């Protein structure tokens, strides 16, 4: 039954020849294109939002699970079973012993980790796909804008997704905890918070672009082992930087990890009760890192598109 139903459709499908008059109309009625940088850029962003909206549930479910389970186990389960983490009283000095819950440490840390995850998920993975196999990147590369604008657009789109991801994680890490184990969150400056979130989003997205253009698609699993995991575990997500003063070599070594500045920057504006890096260092690293990764990423991107 199904085969007989399908057959006529296939016959019709295989013999589509537009009539001369249709094609003549198609050519005659073609709108005169008036592309400008801004219009093309906006259209490309609109395309990203269309795709994001279509995949929103899966994208954010995937993203939210890790921080959700993390706060659930460490801020709810552990305190309940009597094994709650407490930041040692000697750490950093500013935090009085026993007065700071682990969830306080986790709020900025998990938001930063979300930013990194989203930046890479939103930019690196699709990019590796676009460069491999069918080279679908050529579709966008043929749009009437310079190739570097396409790179900047990808960074922007990735940053928006990372920013949204962090905003979604915020209430989760704020609200999921055992009674009395809530985080001490106090926003010192909303504009500064938003600026840090935005700068960190751009940083991870620019890093995502760079990784996406230099990664060998066959070695994508390495991304987790070599980049995501060390960046997160050694990125002051689960402890403040000042607390590492007992392991001086590690404290200095991880200064090369951009995650550190994202976590510490958010710590400074969200949970000032904890020790944190000076704001100038954070801002310098976030803005400088975005510029460096953005420059390098745009350059390697352009080189890979134009061979």
């Amino acid at each position: 039954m199904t085969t007989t139903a399908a057959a006529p459709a296939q016959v019709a499908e295989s013999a589509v020849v537009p009539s001369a008059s249709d094609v003549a109309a198609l050519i005659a009625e073609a709108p005169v294109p008036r592309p400008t940088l801004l219009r093309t850029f906006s259209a490309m962003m609109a395309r990203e939002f269309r795709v994001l909206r279509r995949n929103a549930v899966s994208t954010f479910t995937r993203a939210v699970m890790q921080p959700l389970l993390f706060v659930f186990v460490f801020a709810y389960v552990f305190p309940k079973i009597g094994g709650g983490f407490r930041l040692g009283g000697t750490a950093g000095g500013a935090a009085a012993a026993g007065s700071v819950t682990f969830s306080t440490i986790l709020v900025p840390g998990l938001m930063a980790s979300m930013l990194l995850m989203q930046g890479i998920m939103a930019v690196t993975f699709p990019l590796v796909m676009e460069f491999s196999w069918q080279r679908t990147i050529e579709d966008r590369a043929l749009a009437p804008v310079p190739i570097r604008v396409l790179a900047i657009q990808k960074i922007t789109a990735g940053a928006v997704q990372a920013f949204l991801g962090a905003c979604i994680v915020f209430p989760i890490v704020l609200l999921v905890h055992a009674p009395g184990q809530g985080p001490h969150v106090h926003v010192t400056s909303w504009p500064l918070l938003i600026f840090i979130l935005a700068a960190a989003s751009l940083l991870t997205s620019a890093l995502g672009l760079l990784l996406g253009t230099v990664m060998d698609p066959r070695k994508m699993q390495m991304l987790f082992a070599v980049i995501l995991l060390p960046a997160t575990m050694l990125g002051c997500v689960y402890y403040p930087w000042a607390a590492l003063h007992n392991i001086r070599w590690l404290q200095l070594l991880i200064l090369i990890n951009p995650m550190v500045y994202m976590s510490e920057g958010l710590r400074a504006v969200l949970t000032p009760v904890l020790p944190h890096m000076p704001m100038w260092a954070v801002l310098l690293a976030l803005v400088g890192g975005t510029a460096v990764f953005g420059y390098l990423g745009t350059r390697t991107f352009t080189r890979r598109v134009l061979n």
Partner: protein
Amino acid sequence: MRMHRDTAGHQDGDVMTGPSGYALRTEDLRKTYKSSRGDVPAVRGIDLGVGPGEFFGLLGPNGAGKSTTIGMLTTLVLPTGGRAWVAGLDVVADPVGVKRRIGVVTQNNTLDMQLTVAENLEFRSRFFGLSLREASRRADQLLEVFGLADRSKAMSTDLSGGQAKRLLIARALVHRPDVLFLDEPTAGLDPQTRVNLWDILRVLHAQGQTILLTTHYMEEAEALCERIAVMDHGEVLASGTVNELKDGAGAETVITVRYEDAIPADLTARAGLAERRGVRKVEADGDYVRVFTREPDGVLGELVTAGSAAGLTVRDATQLKPSLETVFLSLTGREYRD
């Protein structure tokens, strides 16, 4: 953000050709890829000129440099030497201007896999500056003409090979390109879909669309193109209309006879081939003899007789009438293989 200068031209009707009168032109265009094993020349200085409204074919086997050439003309491959203009604009100096005036059907399926069929057209239209409403109208119109209206809401990944090709062509036409580039458009399609695609291209051409197509199918170039450039190893070996090419280099019938064993040195002399009327060239090498002649009658018989006189059995024999295949054979001395 700097706005791109809205260059003049692309007014109603006329294809912009620049001062040369060509829709597309190259001058000693070259591309050499750098690799760890040294330089690999892909295109070694080609000169092409395609007039407005012309259907032009680049014909050659895989690796001839066709795709690299099309890559340079569509601004995605940077030339390492020479120059090229599309619609009068230099492809290196003004890639954005060139991209505004061309439509490209890539060899691969470069449809946006995350979007539906209609969205592929709508967003491409918007990339070219059309408003939302214009883009949606244009998409509807293209879907209708290319027989994809009933698939408009399907994801582009769900299309059949033929449908995907039609959508790629439709997408290349959203903004009425001055030149439509098609890189191996029928590679990998079944014969029926291929013929259907040819019909579509013929209709487009009949309506004045300038088309540059690359193909490694002789019959495709012969069936569609007004003029052809035969490429091999990064060079244009000959160019002209199909008839010009056949009258020139490939005017001869090519007869190849392969024997079971190596041929003796005097076989061709014994057969008296060189003295026959119409014979231009006789090649004898290893186990085969190949004759290029304008008067093929009887040649095959002579070769078989001469062979058996020398105690040789014929393994196989082919006789090619003047065609692009004989053009290629005559130009390269090699048989045409895909």
